[in-house]
Every structure is written in C-alpha cells, then in structure tokens.
C-alpha cells in the first residue's frame, strides 16, 4: 500500500517542500493542505512542518493554532492516527494543546542551526521502531525556540508514560531533561525539534532521519487491512 501524508501549510511555513521530498523518497504520497482548509484529505499521517507560521511575530504557534485546519488535525489525532510536528510544527502542536509543555527561547538567546546527535530514549513508539533504544541519530536542528519546558507534575507524567522519544546528546537549547522530541500521552502525536527530513540523504550529511519517517510508515502499514 501507498501511505498518504497531509502536510499542513501556514503562511510562513517553509519546510513543507523538504518534508514532501523526504517522504516522497520513501514512497509516500503527499498532499499540501493550506491552513484555511476546514478538512484534511483522506490520509494516514499528518505532518506539521517547520517554518515561521504567520511570521512568528507573536509567540511561536500562537496564531497558527486558530487556523481552520487545526480542527481537522485535532480530530485526526483524536482518532489515534499519526501526527508529527517538526520544529515550528511542534511549537504549533504545543499551542494547540496536543502536546505537553511549551517551547521557550533557546538558552543561548540565539537562533541555532547545526547538526546534533540525538539518542533514542524509547524505540517502542510509532516514530522510532526502526531504531534501537540508545541508538544515536545524527539529525540537524534549526530554531530559536526549542527549549522545551514543563512543570514537575507534567514531567513526571511524561516520564511515567515513556513519552520522551529523543534526547540530545549535547543539548543545544537548554531543553528540560535534554528533550529533543516527545509524544502525547496516547503516543500517536510526536513533536520534535530536529528535522528528520534534512537527514534523509548521505550526500547531505546523514540518512538517520529516514529511520524516524520510516518507522511511521511501518506503523501505518501494520494498521492497514491486509
């Protein structure tokens, strides 16, 4: 079967093309969905890509969460289907209440674009089955607000539910508990700062991002009727 991905595009999103290309290389059929659309096309997974939705002139993601399309994204998530928010996409999903905690300014108070090593903290999620627990993946970050934070109660729930999927080996932004990516409680929505689509080709520096995107496809195929 061919997996189908809807990539949500806000004014100011800018990683939608890269996500489409990286998923396309894995055999996924992708469709871009403009933020004013009320619904989503029939799809297995939703990607909220990186960028600067609405210019990030307000708190990141604070305006995007009101876009009409977000209702459909919520419904998709509530149905237990996969949603991945990358970078600005994670910020939007946080603002939309689909993921716990918040993303603050980097502790260095500078934008940071660099390759990072992230360690797989939980290989039993739909986003990490192709990797092994403890495996180090080389995936780049590119953000100003990637410093994940939450209160103590939320953190203990996040730990108890094993929601943390990736941790930085060398924390680039001050994120609490070195969190580079985590899921919601149900485990079907992932937010991550590093860009897996940028780590999809050896020529560009790493193929490790394919493990993340590929894990999602495995999950989707497993659900599909035989």
């Amino acid at each position, binding site marked *: 079967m061919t997996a189908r991905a809807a990539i949500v595009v806000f*004014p*100011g999103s*800018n990683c939608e093309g*890269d996500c489409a290309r990286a998923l396309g290389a894995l055999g996924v059929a992708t469709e871009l969905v403009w933020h004013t659309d009320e619904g989503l096309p029939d799809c297995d997974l939703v990607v909220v890509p990186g960028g*600067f939705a609405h210019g990030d002139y307000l708190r990141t993601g604070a305006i995007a969460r009101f876009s009409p399309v977000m209702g459909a994204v919520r419904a998709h998530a509530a149905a237990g289907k996969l949603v991945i928010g990358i970078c600005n996409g994670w910020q939007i999903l946080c603002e939309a209440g689909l993921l716990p905690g918040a993303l603050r300014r980097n502790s260095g108070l500078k*934008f*940071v*674009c660099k390759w990072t090593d992230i360690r797989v903290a939980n290989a039993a999620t739909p986003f990490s089955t192709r990797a092994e627990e403890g495996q180090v993946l080389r995936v780049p970050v*590119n953000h100003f607000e990637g410093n994940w934070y939450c209160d103590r109660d939320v953190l203990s729930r996040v730990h108890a539910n094993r929601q943390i999927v990736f941790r930085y080996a060398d924390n680039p932004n001050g994120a609490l508990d070195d969190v580079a990516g985590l899921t919601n409680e149900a485990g079907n929505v992932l937010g991550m700062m590093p860009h897996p689509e*940028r780590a999809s080709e050896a020529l560009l520096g790493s193929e490790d991002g394919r493990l993340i995107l590929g894990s999602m496809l495995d999950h989707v195929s497993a659900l599909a009727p035989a």
Partner: protein
Amino acid sequence: MGAWVHRELGLTDDELDSIVRRLGRDPTYTELAMFSVMWSEHCSYKSSRKHLATLPSRGDHIIIGPGEGAGVVEVVPGVAVAWKVESHNHPSYVEPGNGAATGVGGIVRDILSMGARPIALLDSLRFGAPGDAHTNYLIDGVVGGISSYGNAIGVPTVGGEAVFDSCYAQNPLVNVACLGIVEGELQQGRAEGPGNVFVLIGSSTGRDGIGGASVLASAEFDAGSSEKRPAVQVGDPLAEKLLIEGCLELAGRGLLVGFQDLGAGGISCPVAEMTSKAGTGAIVDLDQVHRREPGMAPFEVMISESQERMLAVVDPADVDEVLAICERWELVGRVVGVVTPTGRVVVEGGGEVVADVPADALAEEAPIYDRASIRPGELEELSAAEPGDGPPEDLGAALLALLSSPTVASKRWIWEQYDHMIGLGTVIGPGADAAVIRLPGSEAAVALAVDGPGRYCVLDPYEGARLAVAEAARNVACTGARPVAVTNCLNFGNPEKPGVMWAFTETVRGLGDACEALGTPVTGGNVSFYNETEGRAVFPTPVIGMLGALESAADAVGMGLVGDGEALVLLGDTGGSDFGGSEYGKVMWGALGGRPPALDIDAEAALHRLLHEAARGHLLRSAHDCSAGGAGVALALAAFAGGRGFEVELPGDEPHRSLFAESPGRAVVSCSRDDLDALSDLAARHAVTAVRIGATGGAALDYGFVAVPLKVAEKAWSTGFATSISTTID
C-alpha cells in the same frame, strides 16, 4: 518650493538645470523627488557606468548579462541560474538589524524579478575589530538581521565571509549575494504593450525608507548619521515569503508581461525603467496605492522604499486571475496604472497630475560622469612601507596568533545563526572554501564563493582586484567546480575624490583583465560609493561573487582531511616575498605595506583546471586553497575540518615564509596513496607544481620545523572570534 530643496534631496545645481532644460519648466516637488532618487548614484551608477561598460560580459553560457535584475547563467546544459550581489552598507550602519535584513530582502527580490526561485544566500561582511562595544553591537545586529530575515523566508544562507579591519569600524560593509534557479520562463523588466496595466503586489506603502537611495546610499556619513535612521527600511520576512510564492505562481502561469522589484527609489524606479526600456509610457494613479498610513504626500508615495513589493505588467484580461492568486497568498494586489504609448511617466494623485516627465529622462538619460581620477600620493609611501615579513620569535606562537585572529578564526558563531540547510540542496555549507548547492531537479550543483581582499586592494587596486577574482575562482575550484561567471559589489569611498575614483577605475580594470583571463564573464553587480565616515574611506573593497559549475553534486570535494595516512600535496608555487597586505604582517607586526602577492593568472587558471579534472576523476579526498595566513593556516583549517592532524615538510629555507606567505595559485590537497601518481601526472599535464609534503593523521599539526597539538590549535581557532564577540554583549 524653496530654492535649495534639490540640494537637500542630493541633486546638484547642474543637475537641477539639466532637469529644467528637459522639462522646459521648473519641476514639481514630486518630479524633483523622482529625479533625486533616479539620478542618485545608487540608482543611476552615474560615476561608474562608463567604467563598468568595459567589463567582459559575454559568453556562450551567459543568457542575461548586466543591466537586468540579475545575471542569468546556464551552468550545465538546460539548467540556468540567476546570480547577483548587492550592498546594504549604509543602512546596516545606521540600523544594523533592519539594515541587514532588508539587504537580504532586496537581493532576493532582484532574483525573483527574473522569475527565478531564490535558493541560496551568501554574505560578505566587513567590520572593525571585534571586542569594541560598538563594533560588537553592529556585528550582533547585522548577523541577527540576516538570520531573522533569511531564515524566515526559507532561503538557506550557505556561505560567505567576515573580515575585520579598523578601516571598516565606522563604515561596515554588508554585501549579500543570492542565487536563484530558473524554473520556467525568464521574466523581463519591460512595460510592453500600451493598454496593459501595472499591478503593485505585496506590502503596503508607508513612510519608511524615504530617500534611502539618495540620502543614505549616495552621501558620506558624519557624526549626525544616526539621525538618518528613519531613512532605513523595515523588513517583514513573512510578507517576503508570501511574495516569493505568489509571484512564482504568477510567473509559472504565464501571467506576467513584465516584472520588476521595488527597491531603491521605490515605485519610481520600476515605472521609469520598465517604460524607458520598452519605449512606452505610464499613467500611475497614486490613489490606488495601498498605504500603511494616512496623509502621505504624493512624493512620499513615489519614492517610499517600503519593502516586500513588486510591480507587474499584466494583460487587462488576466487581472482578475492575478488578483485572485495574490489573495490566495494573502498578498494585496492593486491595479495602480496603465501602460501608455506616450514615452512619459504621468503621476496622478487626488485628481491632479503631480508629475509628467519623459521616462527616458528619469532612467536611460540619467547623467553619466567621467570623474577626475588621480593616483593618490600616499600610495608611494604604502608601497615603500614594510610588509611585515620578518621571522617571528616563536613559529608555534605565530601560528596560534594567526589562527585566533578574527579574520582567520572560526565564524561558527555567525553561521550557526543562519538556516544553511533548508531546501535539501546544501552539499557543502558554511565554513568551507565555497558552498556547494545541488540544483533542484538536477544532478548538477553550483559552487558559490564571495571574496574581497581589501588589504591587497589598498596597496594596489589593480592587483588587488585580480587577486580577488583569482581567490574567488580558486575557492570554487577547490570544491571541484569550474568557475563560470562573476557578479560583484564594488565598495568604495566618495567618487568625487580623485584618489577614490582612481582606485575605482584601477579595480574595474583589474577585475576585467582577470575575468577575461579566467573566462568568467561579469554578469552584473552593484557599486557602493560614499563608504566614508568623517572623511575616512574604507579600503577599496571589490567583493567578487564567483559562480562555479559541477556536472554532478556527488563530485564535490570538501576541505577537511578525510582519512589517516593519505598523501598531502601542495599544488602551486610559493613566492617567499608574498607578504604585502598579508594576515601575517598585520597580526605579527601591525604592518600594512609593500606590494600585494604576485599573481600569475595563467598559472592560477591552470590550477583551477587541474582541480576540476582531479575532482571529476575522483582523485581528491580533500582540497583547500591557500589564502589569508598562507599554506600553514590552510593546512590547519583542513585539519580542523577533518578532525585529524598531519605530518608534513614544506619546501623552502625560511620556515615563516613557507608557512605564512600568501602566494596565490596554491592549494593543499589530499589523496589516497594509490592515486598519488595519477594526481602527479595530471598536475604535470597542467604544468602545475605538485609537491608531496607529507601525510594526514595524528593529533598534531606537525610542519616539520614546528608542531602544535591539534587540540591547542583548534581551540585558538574556534574561540578567537567567538570570545571577542561575546565579551561585551550579554
């Protein structure tokens, strides 16, 4: 109108007389404002045009040369790119964040105006020595401005350079280069077809940036320059991002008859230039221009440099479709005028005609000056002065001093603030000789480098310009690319001073000669004069943007040493006396004097051909050019990039000359031992000296006559700039 208004607008008495003659009457205020921006140095190139016309600009692969929004080059058969560099020096000094940000926005729209999708940015920056509080404020602001704007519009900033010298302390240089891929039909900045309409697309028009071209870019600075802050434009990257997507859709659907960006000079510029080029005229209705504030006078609307705007010429039958596409991209599009056959630009506002002037008078027939040019006397003293080529007390300490000097030291602090990866094309990113960008939908790649060695140019602008071209081409060649075309930004002082004008003409002559010899035509560029504050000019600084072509992105060669035990080879000849304008002379002795390094342009070209062929034959594991700091520094940088040391012996009797002389035409390359013979044969065939100097590997930079632990050297290099920029900024 006051008798001296024209002077406040930057027009001379003679220019006013000329305007009155052409109109047969006194100009209205709006007309005077339009002339002041169109005849400004920045827009008209009145001091430089005569000289720029001498540059080589033709070639089979050159699709569009100088004079349009950007040059267009066919890099491999069937794949064309648009490529240009522009300055935003003065705005960046007055207001560093917005000045630099709008510099990015401006060059991106130049590329967009050709119908090309912007896919890469590079920055060539000049500041005073970091560590000084004001200089650090400028660096932080400029880098932050480029970062916030470039990152948000989704165009990767893939490379560039930053050079520090006290002559730039009161006049930083911010030159931005942009590359675009031509996806469909090329667009032209021509208003053909009377009856077609002008559609203004993008941001609303406000009072920001009034007189940017005439007030900021075309006059020297003095102590009151910070009062010019209102003349700096304010950037809105979200609007630019939407503008890019919306306009590319309009171009892709074939809805544009003519297309041009609004930059310096506001709407006056594209209206005048597009009609002048097409031999048509225009009626512009200012009441239709969407504005961000009430009460603007007609002249303000005509010359406002509000950002993120484009002007399209559209067939009336297509207007509805054009406006619908604009709306979908959340852009405002307004029909603001019509093309006429009259040859005149008529501007109406509030039911009155506020301007009625010949289009050619504004554009094509702007003044051209042949300004006086005299070789300055100080040059003799500079030539006679010491270059600073004495031996150091301690070679190891000298190496560390060079590695930690801001110009040589790692600029990671800068480029980590830039998104250099978006677009999935960055094969080689910042910090290398040249960036290598794979082109969308193709196996081919381009290599891009910007270089401008001001310290050579101040000693001899002709030789300096040749060296700038040679170095930029060498940088591109080190990645395995073939240098194919040049864009340039010429940064100089006040052209009304004969010494500055002499340096300018010598630079253009050197640029032309070197480009001719290397077969890299000049496809356009930008001239920035009046880079002076309180009478002190910057070094003559021609920034060369070199475009290289790689048939296959997979052939690209990096600068870092790749494996252990591989052969290290020095290509090219070292001239022991090449210390004039050198980094060694500056860092060790505070010297600036003598002659710039001697350039044999044929030997340089041979080296580039050798590197290209060796890369295509997959003979090279790494390649890095020798420039500031000589072979000693070049080897160290290759070691840092590869995370391993080396053991070499350099030819020559005096260690410091072997290590630090800045002879051009050289590169340090590594290859597997098995390929050494093939590389040597190839070098011999190209008549390039190739000396096996040692092997890669180990934890030291071992030059034979001196060795430094890799970790120690790398720390000096990686902290040299970052520490000085961080000390005074919290």
